[in-house]
């Protein structure tokens, strides 16, 4: 999926100024991301419509990014999760990758880097969903 239009993308971050601005920039590039300001809200939105790709903050009030990541991996195995954090240590990165995160970035980062990561995640999501459909 090189064209990201139509991708079900969910951005999760408690920094409202960051996540809404990021969403606007992605909209200018043809995406239609949904935004959640907490882990709990993210899971509620995913329940209504599972995202193909989730961009997830690590440290948030309430559910942490790691807790959300665990919940997503167990409930929506096709959803690809990219961690995006201002707080991450090497241990955090290792923990996220071990739990199945498909990417790990530190803020602030170039939008193009994030877009590349989203494209790669979208491809993996399509492959997984395609394999599952073929196996049925």
């Amino acid at each position, binding site marked *: 999926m090189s064209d990201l239009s139509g991708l079900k993308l969910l951005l999760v971050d408690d920094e409202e100024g*960051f996540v809404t*601005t990021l969403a606007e*920039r992605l909209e*200018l590039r043809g995406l239609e991301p949904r935004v959640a300001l907490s882990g709990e809200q993210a899971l509620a939105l995913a329940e209504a419509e599972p995202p193909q790709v989730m961009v997830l903050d690590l*440290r948030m009030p309430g559910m942490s990014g790691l807790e959300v990541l665990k919940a997503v991996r167990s409930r929506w195995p096709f959803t690809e999760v990219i961690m995006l954090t*201002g707080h991450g240590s090497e241990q955090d990165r290792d923990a996220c990758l071990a739990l199945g995160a498909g990417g790990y970035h530190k*803020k*602030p980062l170039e939008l193009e880097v994030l877009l590349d990561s989203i494209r790669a995640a979208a491809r993996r999501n399509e492959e997984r969903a395609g394999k599952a459909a073929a196996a049925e």
Partner: protein
Amino acid sequence: MREARFMGTVTAMAMHDMQNVLAIVRESAGLMGDLLRVNKDAPLKHREALERAMGHITHHVERGKGILEAMSRLAHATDDNQSERTDLATCCRVVAQLTERLARMKKAEVRYAAASPSIVVEVGTMPVMAAIFLGLRLVLEQPGPDERVLEIRVENRAGRPVACIHTPGLNLSPADLDGLTVALAGTGAEPRQAGETLELWFPCTGGAA
């Protein structure tokens, strides 16, 4: 040490939060840039000045990010101390970054030799960083031409890790070296001058980190 850990923890938390602040600044500048590009054919006074200003914001966000990462390393040095094993090259890079301002005040520039090998020093991170800073500050305080460059690199000399601070024309007096020796007490580092280079010799064997 308890106070140092407290300072380290609180500073690290604040540094992490500053990364969120920089991220918002960066995305906001990015959005303004996007809007200018989308409306590139619309008449707009001072378009070039706006684009230039956004370029400055992006450049300085990157600069701030580098400083914050170095500050975060410094703040976490109090955690790392427990292991008493430190990567000398990482410490040199962090201290070089954090002394950028001090160097600029002295009309100098500190450059970290990126090709420096990774060498483990069996001393805590905080004393290693302190030793490098004290050596760097002594060299910066020496008279020298404007725009001089101080290069920091790491070498393994027959199993001993050495941090080398080189600048053309460096000539430390015996009193300078004696003063530095006193200041370095407890850091494990021993200062020597070799030509135009101040060397800080650390104890124990070097090895790949």
